[in-house]
């Protein structure tokens, strides 16, 4: 019958047409340009995270071009928006490879996007720096993924260490406020384990969703249980609401801790005095650091007409500059003969690469693309509306 015939045609045609071959020529590199892709969220509710990061990446490349480019080549960055949806990120990567024919991408977005794109990344040898800090990106070894920032686990271990060693607490009451995202869960587990290693159990483990209207019940529960140290694993907007809510209920923990996505001057600007006990961990330097790297970042920002207000989250702008810096250096080391393989090889020559304080000294080898497991802690400096570094780069303590 008709239906059968239609199906037959589809099947026969499908079977005869089963072949394809991705083109593997020297993609994206000509005599005078390098085409570089970038997938980061530009629109929607999380754009506040993607925009400063991407601007940092693009601005540094612009700056590099004005310095004469790399080996006579200018770098052309094509920034695609994924609206923070993995299917869109996959589509954007396909477009960048097949339509724009880029050499590689700086990043494909967050952890979900990177995992969803993993196969393409390996097939097309796209060396990239994921915008997420998960262990599985470098352990086991992935040839084209170069992790830049300290793991969430590392950050929270350092925070717990700080409570026990620097603040000399013997038996602190620690509560965790987290969100049900990968960083929240990883963070919660890391804190729980670390506290247990010191012989302390967590008092509370509360969820604060990213779009929460109100943090009253969380704050009240922590207050009810006399929690002295609150460790948060959530992004900025809910943490700002949370800190403001603690003020509403006269709840004053000895310190509120946050990790890299919530360690930004913004929190002090937004919460004012309520944030005075806020301590954040980050794997990039602070905007008020006095290091050559941060000074360079400030110079670049000024050059392209951005002030603190128009940048938004300065810590992420710095992160973007850092990621681009890494790529710029890799292009330099790869020399004139630039292709996906030589780029990967160039990344793997980094030994204690010094970024001037934007991120800690960083090494990649052909066996490991692990990030430097180091962070800095920053404390709120309310009068100056900023976070101020209170430690240098530090690793988690060795536990016995």
């Amino acid at each position, binding site marked *: 019958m008709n239906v059968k015939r239609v199906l037959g045609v*589809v099947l026969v*045609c*499908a079977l005869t047409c089963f072949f394809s071959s991705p083109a593997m020529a020297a993609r994206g590199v000509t005599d005078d340009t390098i085409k570089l892709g970038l997938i980061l969220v530009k629109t929607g509710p999380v754009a506040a995270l993607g925009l400063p990061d991407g601007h940092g990446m693009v601005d540094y490349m612009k700056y590099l071009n004005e310095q004469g480019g790399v080996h006579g080549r200018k770098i052309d960055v094509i920034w695609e928006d994924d609206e923070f949806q*993995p299917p869109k990120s996959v589509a954007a990567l396909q*477009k960048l490879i097949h339509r724009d024919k880029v050499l590689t991408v700086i990043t494909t977005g967050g952890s979900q996007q990177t995992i969803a794109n993993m*196969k393409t990344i390996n097939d097309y040898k796209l060396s990239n720096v994921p915008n997420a800090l998960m262990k599985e990106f470098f352990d086991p070894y992935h040839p084209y993924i170069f992790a830049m920032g300290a793991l969430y686990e590392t950050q929270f271990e350092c925070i717990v260490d700080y409570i026990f060693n620097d603040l000399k607490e013997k038996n602190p009451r620690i509560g965790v406020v987290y969100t049900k995202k990968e960083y929240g869960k990883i963070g919660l587990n890391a804190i729980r384990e670390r506290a247990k290693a010191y012989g302390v159990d967590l008092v509370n483990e509360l969820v604060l969703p990213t779009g929460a209207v109100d943090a009253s019940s969380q704050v009240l529960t922590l207050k009810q249980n006399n929690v002295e140290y609150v460790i948060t694993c959530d992004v900025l907007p809910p943490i700002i609401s949370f800190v403001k809510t603690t003020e509403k209920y006269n709840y004053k923990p000895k310190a509120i801790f946050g990790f890299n996505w919530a360690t930004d001057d913004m929190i002090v600007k937004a919460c004012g005095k309520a944030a005075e006990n806020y301590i954040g961990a980050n794997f990039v330097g602070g905007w008020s650091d006095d290091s050559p790297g941060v000074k360079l970042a400030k110079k670049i920002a000024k050059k392209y007409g951005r002030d603190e207000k128009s940048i938004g989250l300065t810590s992420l702008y710095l992160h973007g500059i850092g990621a681009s810096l890494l790529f710029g250096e890799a292009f330099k080391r790869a020399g004139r003969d630039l292709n996906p393989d030589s780029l990967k090889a160039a990344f793997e020559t980094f030994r204690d690469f010094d970024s001037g304080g934007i991120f800690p000294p960083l090494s990649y080898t052909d066996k490991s693309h692990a990030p430097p497991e180091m962070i800095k802690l920053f404390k709120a400096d309310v009068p100056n509306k900023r976070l101020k570094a209170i430690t240098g780069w530090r690793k988690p303590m060795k536990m016995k």
Partner: protein
Amino acid sequence: MAIRSKTFRESYYEDIKLFQTIWIKFWMMLFIIALVAVPFVTDPYLVYIIDISCIATIAALGLNILTGFTGQISLGHAAFLAIGAYTTAIFASTLNMKFWVCLPASGVAAACAGLLVGIPCLRLKGLYLAMATMSFGVVVEYVTVTWEDLTLGVRGISVPTLDVFGYALDSNEKLYYFLVAVTALAVIAATNLVRTRVGRAFIAIRDRDIAAEVMGVNLTRYKVLAFAIGSFYAGVAGGLYAYVMHYIHPDHFTFLLSVQYLAMIIIGGLGSVLGSVFGAVFVTVVPEFIKALAQTMTLVFPALEDKYDDAWNIAAFGLLIMLFLIFEPKGLSGIWLRIKTCFKNWPYTY
């Protein structure tokens, strides 16, 4: 042979025939040839977009059967996709099953969930039903996040490459033929369903459920059946989604996705199989098209480049949806029908 005039039908069977005239057969053939040729003339990016639209089509068909044909509004369609996707992901990765187990299992799992929601929701109508299904969606999201032993929670599950009888479908083009074949099956099945007794019962329920009951349509049975069939489609679509994305995460199946599917069937046309296809393709392809258009514009007028913002693309998409529906509230299938009649009656168009 006489000049072709208005179709003249002699029996009821002719009226519900799949291919009414020889011309429809001809155009179908041409369309199939075009579909087969697609990967040869375009690049993998476009093929990927079509892959995604195929999945959307299947899910939209399911929702259209439930909402468009039976009149049971659902705002929890994403939940059924999630159940399907997780079934495939778990079967394929943990239990190492083949696709011909995973995909039907996804459908069945989602259909069971559909029964689970359908039965308690029998008394609900309209927006109340929409909200009850939405609640179900929220609960499913909570379960996928929380039940870590099964779903790996917010880590998400990586799914192995789809393997069709020993042939790995590891590129967009290879997946394309598989997806198009499954979508064709789904479309044919849906077309057939709506011309049977069951389909007529669905439509009767949509138009006036009490009248349908009086006429002997078993409301309970058919309402629950509509839920089961709609969810089955969603489950299969979810399974395919897992294979195509190679990775699923609870965040992929939120309330916004349910709204998106509702958008697809309304834009395409409620109660129309063709409409589901149009709507799904519209919602997945048009944003990419607008993006490409905007980028071409910035090449033609470099002055625009500084002013250009990706948010304009999305705004344009929203505006387009509004204009479309103000212009043609019956959706794309309404426009299609109009164009078709226009050609059919040519030169006597009116």
